[in-house]
């Protein structure tokens, strides 16, 4: 393993995120990678946190993405599982198990699952109505204490991380929690109407998530906060920027304050075209935006709006080249992206969303290999 393929959270990733010039090479970042791809690269099925870390570190990434907060409950319910990505269902205290059961039971009648010809099952988020749609639901939901969630991965990760490797959790999500709890369409309507239900749920979610962020930041290994809130669709924001400014961004400001107090960066993941609120994100103090969704955003336009102090992460299209191109096309597009976006620093390579099961292994590998080869500064 050369120094360029070894993890370097501070020297490489944080230098890019804080826009402090060019590190040794362009950092690789992903919000998530399909488990089959990880297993194939590692040469064995991933059986726990140590294997996860082994994959991310050996593949050239500088940090492992972890997860904490309400999304671990909601995502488990949507995927009809007892636990989230890194959680141990055996460790769920009764109130967390009850919250998951509440959501699963209410989503089950409309549980959205498709099975492809090859047997691949896919679960889909509730788009119409979620599992909290009335004030009565809100009160009936067995809200756990944020301290009751499973933080075992955060406790274990420090001793498992190899030198130079960091950990960043997806946590602090506000808007996506509301969308998934209410249902996407219902949430957008309640938000536009600024209903009492929306206000009450927002308050509960916001308070809960702030406490989770505070707890999460208490773990020494945590090197950043990554908020996972999809706010855009293909051509615009899902709702008026006025509503985001009024209802969601005040929580982001509090999370920024918490992250800043701990001296770690704040990152945002949002699908869709969120160009209209990029100036707001700069003012709030986000250090990086991911994934500059190529379905609706360009790096050039985003850079022009965000200025030189916002790190941009992503923009390699999941459709073409990653999903439907050849490895050669992936390599060509990746190289072109690196040459246009990375000079000067302030950029990390990532797909335009994540690496799901329909990205061929060879295509992910072509992106990763090209980044390690072409992404070395100075970029020719």
């Amino acid at each position, binding site marked *: 393993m050369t120094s360029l393929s070894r993890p370097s959270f501070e020297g490489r990733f944080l230098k890019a995120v804080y826009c402090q010039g060019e590190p040794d090479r362009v950092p690789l970042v992903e919000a998530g990678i399909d488990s089959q791809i990880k297993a194939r690269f590692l040469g064995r099925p991933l059986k726990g946190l140590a294997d996860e870390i082994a994959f991310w570190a050996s593949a050239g990434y500088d940090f492992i993405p972890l997860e904490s907060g309400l999304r671990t409950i909601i995502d488990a319910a949507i995927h009809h599982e007892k636990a989230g990505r890194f959680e141990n269902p055996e460790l769920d205290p009764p109130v967390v198990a009850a919250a998951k059961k509440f959501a699963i039971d209410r989503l089950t009648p409309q549980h959205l699952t498709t099975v492809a010809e090859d047997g691949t099952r896919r679960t889909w988020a509730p788009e119409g109505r979620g599992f909290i749609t009335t004030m009565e639901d809100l009160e009936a939901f067995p809200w756990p204490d944020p301290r009751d969630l499973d933080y075992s991965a955060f406790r274990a990760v420090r001793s498992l991380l190899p030198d130079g490797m960091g950990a960043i959790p997806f946590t602090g999500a506000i808007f996506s929690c509301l969308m998934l709890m209410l249902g996407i369409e219902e949430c957008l309507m309640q938000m536009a109407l600024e209903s009492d239900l929306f206000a009450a749920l927002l308050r509960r979610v916001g308070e809960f998530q702030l406490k989770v962020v505070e707890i999460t930041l208490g773990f020494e290994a945590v090197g950043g906060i990554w908020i996972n809130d999809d706010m855009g669709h293909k051509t615009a924001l899902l*709702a008026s920027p006025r509503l985001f400014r009024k209802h969601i961004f005040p929580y982001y400001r509090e999370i920024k304050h918490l992250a800043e107090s701990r001296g770690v960066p704040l990152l945002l993941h949002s699908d869709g075209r969120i160009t209209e609120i990029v100036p707001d994100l700069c003012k709030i103090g986000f250090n990086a935006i991911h994934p500059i969704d190529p379905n609706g955003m360009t790096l050039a336009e985003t850079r022009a709006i965000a200025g030189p102090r916002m790190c941009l992460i992503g923009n390699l299209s999941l459709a073409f080249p990653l999903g439907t191109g050849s490895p050669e096309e992936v390599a060509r597009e990746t190289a072109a992206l690196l040459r246009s976006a990375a000079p000067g620093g302030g950029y990390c390579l990532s797909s335009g969303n994540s690496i799901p099961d329909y990205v061929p292994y060879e295509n992910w590998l072509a992106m990763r290999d090209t980044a390690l080869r072409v992404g070395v500064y100075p970029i020719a």
Partner: protein
Amino acid sequence: MTALDDTYSAVLEGNAEVARKGVEACLAAGVIPESILHQGLIPAMREVGARFERQEYYVPEMLIAARAMQAGLNVIRPLLAAGGVQAVARVAIGTVQGDLHDIGKNLVAMMLEGAGFEVTDLGTDVQPQKFVEAVRSGAQLIGISALLTTTMTKMPAVLEALKSAGLRDQARVIVGGAPLTQEFAEKIGADGYAPDASQAVTVSRSLLGLG
């Protein structure tokens, strides 16, 4: 302000109750249903689309306006049918097989209905044969939606099914969804592509020679 103006404003503001009452007031004032549709409801939804494209309206405002339009339309729908008033064109729309994404397709359906089209919503996870049957039943335009890269690759199967059934020339095909592009639409042989619900109306009208 006439009742027609009230109806127009109510749709724009997304007030379903006022829109319904506005249509009823129009009828009481002797305005014929076709005029209510073409001078009240359709222009209002056209303005909703324009505001959406100017980013003055977002998804919720479009949804609320569409529901108001439907409240008004429900009052005159039986009268239009009884009077033999024809829709602008017949459309069948659905999410491609293997895909359960709903919102984008629903928005397009609502906007097309608001533009005077007769819309059959085939739902989600729609098998190619369902689109074929829709064309056999008279659909002049097929709309296919996909959320994911992996499901958009199922779109060519719909076009193939139409060809195999000898119906490809009888309907135009428009595609849309997050991962889609104009290039992809052309590559698979679709007739049109629209990036959002508002532009889907413009493209659909153009494909059908409606200006």
